[in-house]
């Protein structure tokens, strides 16, 4: 009886893993819904398709082991049945479901309790707590509009350094890491159809992006932003709203690391250190695992042992840099051989840093923080 039980459990686990992978398609559908809602372009057809998706998720989420998917999909189905439809309410429900799916995909667990309510940077009263710092010292702004300049200044100048480009073509990732990118889609040189290109630019693939536009009900704009993984805000945008949306976008961006070493003790030591800084950890014990995890999770940084089974470290590094999906992820190589020739070989192959064993785990964490532009 127990072997049947085990076979059943592991088969069910297999179905769950596949379902989790398929949630990526669900997220893509939700992105589309959110884009159309935020731009006030929600049509009955899109709403009906979304309602059908929500209904399916209610049935399958909890069945497959993801109860919060069922819960949040039920809310979405309910708001999609409202008459008249309220796009902002639908958008909020869809974002919640999207966050839940994302959280399950990253951690296998439901999301933590919702974060504290956003802070008003402008109308802050004396007893309001300090606004949380942006994760990264700067904000990239793309616009040619003095009104937008003023808005950004109002909201962010007090605690962030703003780097401004007049058009998408001219925008590049700065040498120091940026926390957020805000683009005005109404400025000449920042057409919605250029957003894909913006996303593909090195260094900008992972940034949270907020797009501002005054074009209501434009299906064309909505279609342009689907698939570029950004959020749209309809003008007029109040400072409070911009501050709240920026905070939310930043809070969603969590640090994660893939740690690849065939030595279990090294893995555990590094895991413990990185966890203290709030990183989400993915452990790999051979080169093949590192590639799989890196492609699946697109971590903020990779720590990679030079000497590993299946595929050795330098080769893995080469593969990571050759793959457009992973090439922007900084890699710290660990090696027991400290020769200069070795190290320069690794640097040429694209390693961001080299650390020689034996190392202090603090050292690895400190280098990672430096590379990612984080305090401490």
């Amino acid at each position, binding site marked *: 009886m127990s072997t049947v039980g085990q076979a*059943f459990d592991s088969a*069910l686990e297999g*179905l769950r893993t596949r379902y989790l992978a398929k949630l990526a398609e669900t997220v893509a559908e939700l992105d589309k819904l959110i884009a159309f809602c935020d731009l006030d372009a929600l049509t009955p057809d899109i709403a009906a398709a979304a309602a059908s998706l929500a209904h399916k998720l*209610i*049935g*399958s989420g909890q069945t497959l082991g993801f109860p919060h998917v*069922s819960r949040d999909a039920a809310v979405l189905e309910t708001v999609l049945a409202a008459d008249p439809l309220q796009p902002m309410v639908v958008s909020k429900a869809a974002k919640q479901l999207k966050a839940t799916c994302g959280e399950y995909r990253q951690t296998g667990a439901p999301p933590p309790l919702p974060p504290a309510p956003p802070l008003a940077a402008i109308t802050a009263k004396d007893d309001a707590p300090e606004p949380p710092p942006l994760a990264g010292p700067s904000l990239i702004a793309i616009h040619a509009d003095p009104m937008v300049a003023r808005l950004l200044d109002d909201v962010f100048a007090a605690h962030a350094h703003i780097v401004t480009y007049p058009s998408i073509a001219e925008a590049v990732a700065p040498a120091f890491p940026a926390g957020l990118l805000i683009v005005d889609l109404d400025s000449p040189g920042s057409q919605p159809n250029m957003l894909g290109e913006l996303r593909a630019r090195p260094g900008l693939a992972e940034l949270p992006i907020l797009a501002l536009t005054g074009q209501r009900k434009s299906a064309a704009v909505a279609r342009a932003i689907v698939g570029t993984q950004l959020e749209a805000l309809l003008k007029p945008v109040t400072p409070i709203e911009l501050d709240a949306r920026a905070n939310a976008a930043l809070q969603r961006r969590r640090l994660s690391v893939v740690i690849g070493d065939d030595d279990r003790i090294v893995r555990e030591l590094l895991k413990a250190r990185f966890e203290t800084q709030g990183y989400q950890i993915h452990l790999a014990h051979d080169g093949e695992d590192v590639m799989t995890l890196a492609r699946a999770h697109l971590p903020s940084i990779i720590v990679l042992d030079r000497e590993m089974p299946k595929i050795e470290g330098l080769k893995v590094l080469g593969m990571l840099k050759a793959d457009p999906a992973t090439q922007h992820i900084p890699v710290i190589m660990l090696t027991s051989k400290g020769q200069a020739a070795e190290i320069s070989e690794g640097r040429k192959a694209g390693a961001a840093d080299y650390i020689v064993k034996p190392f202090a785990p603090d050292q690895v964490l400190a280098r990672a923080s430096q590379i990612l532009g984080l305090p401490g």
Partner: protein
Amino acid sequence: MKQLRHILCVDDEDDIQEVVKLCLEMDGGFAIDTCPGGAEALAFLDHTRPDLILLDVMMPGMDGPATFAAMKARGLDVPVIFMTARVRGAEVSQYLEMGAVGVVPKPFDPVSLASEVRQLWAASLAKTPGPA
């Protein structure tokens, strides 16, 4: 008592089909066939007669109740259990009034699906004494 051996599961969602198949085959020991919709189910029933049908309510094209009605119109009296993500009391009695032997709400617990199906089957036999 008539044995429950062969079950047909009609649902347009792959994931649900797979879970149901897994639960009822591995855990329940039944023989399971699946169909993605009402039309396919009717075609299946033209040549094969399962002991029981698990029928999803919300399906594109021909939904669960429409499929059930079509079955009855053809004189197919295979017992039917509806599966649905909408289980308010009024709807459940509606399905039972149509002649379904029961309703399994979605989401369902994979671990207890097989025994739930058995229970509903046993209850249906108790109501309508058939051949020994």
